[in-house]
């Protein structure tokens, strides 16, 4: 895809979002004229830009939409639920068309085209009574002028060139135009045979205003261009200059009419024309004689022009007021706009490249550090440590560049909640908090779909119909909340609803029916609720087209796990449910804690490390200990990864915490903090549990990064099972 198209797609999607947000606001506040103008402007910009990149299917579609918006803007039609609904569906269609463009297809599929056509039919109902396009008047004038050429009377003047008479307006120079430009440009159409300057209106030097233009010209032009082409040259000054164009071989009387119409003295102008070679002296004499007999009294042209001038002035006054009022309102917006103007657009892959480079820099820095320490030169150690501090700063700033606010993703849900609640016939409000929470762009891109599923689920299965809510003593309107906040190195996104909560018994029954659990099994409430994450689980009595196909929740969980995140659900029956998604802040570089087992090195994300303690040797046969009165399960990496070598006399436990759960990881050595550039594992290792990636150490060795979350999960699950199995209190060992 070329650069221009990708710029268009990005811009188009932004404008589309602006349009959609505007339409949603419009439903709440139909009389906000600024908003209507904003919507129109967004549609107009998309249309204009799509014309530039020659994407005609978008241009044509947006043209229809713009027509309706224009009528809305002019107050010819009014805001209604049907109209905003239609326009929102047009936004959807536009999104589909953008997809087509982005995919590089030559034109939309038949399905998309059909959708567009049916929308156009609906749009037409709003424009059906629109006035015909303006411009008819102009066409008429032109045919009139052409008719003149053939009118009878007077002999044909023997010349094969065009004759152009032009008297420029006084304000021409102040409008940034130069009379010479026109003449030069005229020269590019053909050959200028003769040119006479008519400076007659020039006042005496004392009264002359050097900023005004007093010039006129009589020009003979030989060209094959049409009259329209010649006229077009003077397009920009047509309104305030006098322009007459006579085609080759025009009739004499037309020249005479010209002479009369122009402001200069007839005789003098006649002489100029003769000098320019447009007329011969004989032709002029004959013409003037003939004209004397039928001379019309009075200067009609002048009488006509006055009212037009007045109208123009009137018009200007009106416009001035309108403009001033608009400016007053816009100054309030201008500050916000100024902030936006300071943004720089950067292509995402350039950023990714930078992050990659910073990653390499971190690794190279670590290796330099190591060598410096080995060399034992204190000056070298000092300078490399300064260097590595700077590298750390660069790393943070570079990662910051990729951080985007989650707000944009969240605001999309305004529309979803509106549409879905209408479809379901429920009354649901959406509350968003923490929209300014930042997280990595690549995470933001991938979190949209899982969130969509959760929000739809909440609305479909969670929130009860208004009548049921009232019966339960709740307000008629249900709420869905989207919250985002930072929590110890990860970002937490919550989807909360105040609906009926997850029905524990129903879930259990369903699971038993489906053979997912045995009727005899004892499960905790949390375990039952967690069954919803299992593949193929759905409790909705009726499958709606929103959710409830039973493929949802396990897909949601898998998507989130792919982002190195986790999700959990809490629910209180009758009061609502809360889905919590926990995601790492970034996917590229983390602060790690380096540990060693045997000869191998492992990295534990530092954010999860709580403390390190020494493991007493008397715990050899157990896998839990008493940490200040708390049971702390632990895993031995040596056993888990089946590492060869003697167990050292002293082992250490790294206490880690994830989502409120603590566990210990037993290792040989603690090697300290380490900046870790995460390198993904190859696809064959994708299903490996307990390892999240790899990194390269300063020495060039590879260290594996532990996936603490899955380690803890595994450990606590084991623990719970054994607790249920013998339901006896574990014997504890004092650690300290």
């Amino acid at each position: 895809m070329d650069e221009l198209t990708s710029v268009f797609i990005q811009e188009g999607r932004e404008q589309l979002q602006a349009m959609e947000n505007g339409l949603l606001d419009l439903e709440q506040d139909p009389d906000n004229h600024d908003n209507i103008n904003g919507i129109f402007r967004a549609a107009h910009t998309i249309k204009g830009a799509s014309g530039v990149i020659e994407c005609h299917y978008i241009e044509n579609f947006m043209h229809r939409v713009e027509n309706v918006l224009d009528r809305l803007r002019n107050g010819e039609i009014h805001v209604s639920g049907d109209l905003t609904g239609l326009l929102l569906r047009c936004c959807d269609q536009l999104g589909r068309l953008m997809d087509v463009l982005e995919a590089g297809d030559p034109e939309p599929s038949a399905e998309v085209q059909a959708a567009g056509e049916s929308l156009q039919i609906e749009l037409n109902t709003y424009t059906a009574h629109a006035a015909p396009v303006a411009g008819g008047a102009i066409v008429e004038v032109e045919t009139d002028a052409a008719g003149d050429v053939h009118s009878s009377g007077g002999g044909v003047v023997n010349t094969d060139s065009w004759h152009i008479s032009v008297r420029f307006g006084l304000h021409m120079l102040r409008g940034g135009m130069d009379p010479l430009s026109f003449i030069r440009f005229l020269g590019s159409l053909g050959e200028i045979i003769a040119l006479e300057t008519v400076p007659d209106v020039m006042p005496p030097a004392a009264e002359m205003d050097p900023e005004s233009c007093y010039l006129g010209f009589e020009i003979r032009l030989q060209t094959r261009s049409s009259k329209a082409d010649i006229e077009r040259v003077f397009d920009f000054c047509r309104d305030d200059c006098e322009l007459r164009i006579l085609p080759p071989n025009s009739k004499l009387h037309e020249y005479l009419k010209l002479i009369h119409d122009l402001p200069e003295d007839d005789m003098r102008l006649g002489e100029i024309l003769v000098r320019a070679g447009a007329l011969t002296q004989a032709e002029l004499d004959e013409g003037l004689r003939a004209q004397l007999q039928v001379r019309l009294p009075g200067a009609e042209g002048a009488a006509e022009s006055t009212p037009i001038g007045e109208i123009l002035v009137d018009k200007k006054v009106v416009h001035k007021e309108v403009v001033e009022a608009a400016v007053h309102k816009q100054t309030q917006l201008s500050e916000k706009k100024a902030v936006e103007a300071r943004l720089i657009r950067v292509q995402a892959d350039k950023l990714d490249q930078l992050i990659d480079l910073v990653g390499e820099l971190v690794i190279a820095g670590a290796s330099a550090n190591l060598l410096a320490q080995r060399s034992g030169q204190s000056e070298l150690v000092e300078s490399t440590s300064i260097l590595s501090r700077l590298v750390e700063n660069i790393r943070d700033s570079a990662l910051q560049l990729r951080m985007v606010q989650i707000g944009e993703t969240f605001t999309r849900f305004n529309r979803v909640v509106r549409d879905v609640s209408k479809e379901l016939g429920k009354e649901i409000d959406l509350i968003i908090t923490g929209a300014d929470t930042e997280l990595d762009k690549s995470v933001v891109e991938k979190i949209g779909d899982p969130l969509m599923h959760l929000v739809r689920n909440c609305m479909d299965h969670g929130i009860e119909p208004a009548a049921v809510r009232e019966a339960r003593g709740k307000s008629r309107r249900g709420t869905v909340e989207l919250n985002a906040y930072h929590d110890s190195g990860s970002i937490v996104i919550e989807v909360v609803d105040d609906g009926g909560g997850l029905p524990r018994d129903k879930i259990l029954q369903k699971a038993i029916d489906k053979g997912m659990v045995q009727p005899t099994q004892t499960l905790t409430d949390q375990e039952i609720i967690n069954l919803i994450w299992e593949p193929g689980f759905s409790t909705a009595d009726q499958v709606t087209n929103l959710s409830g196909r039973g493929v949802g929740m396990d897909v949601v969980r898998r998507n989130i796990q792919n982002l190195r995140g986790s999700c959990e659900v809490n629910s209180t029956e009758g009061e609502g449910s809360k889905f919590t998604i926990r995601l790492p802040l970034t996917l590229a570089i983390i602060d790690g804690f380096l540990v060693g087992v045997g000869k191998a090195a492992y990295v534990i994300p530092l954010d999860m490390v709580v403390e390190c303690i020494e493991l007493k040797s008397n715990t050899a046969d157990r896998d839990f200990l008493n940490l200040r009165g708390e049971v702390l399960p632990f895993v031995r990496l040596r056993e888990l990864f089946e590492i060869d070598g003697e167990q050292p006399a002293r082992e250490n436990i790294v206490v880690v915490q994830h989502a409120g759960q603590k566990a210990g990881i037993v290792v040989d050595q603690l090697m300290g903090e380490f900046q870790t550039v995460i390198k993904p594992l190859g696809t064959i290792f994708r299903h490996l549990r307990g390892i999240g990636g790899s990194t390269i150490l300063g020495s060039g060795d590879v260290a594996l990064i532990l996936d603490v979350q899955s380690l803890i999960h595994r450990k606590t699950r084991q623990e719970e099972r054994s607790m249920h199995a013998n339901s006896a209190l574990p014997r504890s060992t004092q650690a300290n």
Partner: protein
Amino acid sequence: MKTIFLVDDSATILLSISNILGKAGYATEKAASGEEALRKFQSGVKVDLLITDLNMPGINGIELIKEVRKLPTYKFMPILFLTTESQQSRKMEAKAAGASGWIVKPATADDLLNTIKLVLR
């Protein structure tokens, strides 16, 4: 080399016009809003021609033209504005504000360059 100042809130249009102008041997200066353009003019940016969109949030094209014309340096500079077929009435308004001429969107590269040739000195 002549320098042309482009003002448009659409990045697509800015990029496409500046591509055309660049190929034709013009230097370009760009601004994405009336405010940004006005700041540059107030700080005396050296340009030979201004091409601005009319319909922009904040300071719109017509206001920009008025303000630029007030600055002595740019009193006689040619100013073109971008418009569409449907905006005939705004042409008058923009001309009254001090514009020299207009370019109808979407314009072909030839239309654009011809118009520029017409107004540039």
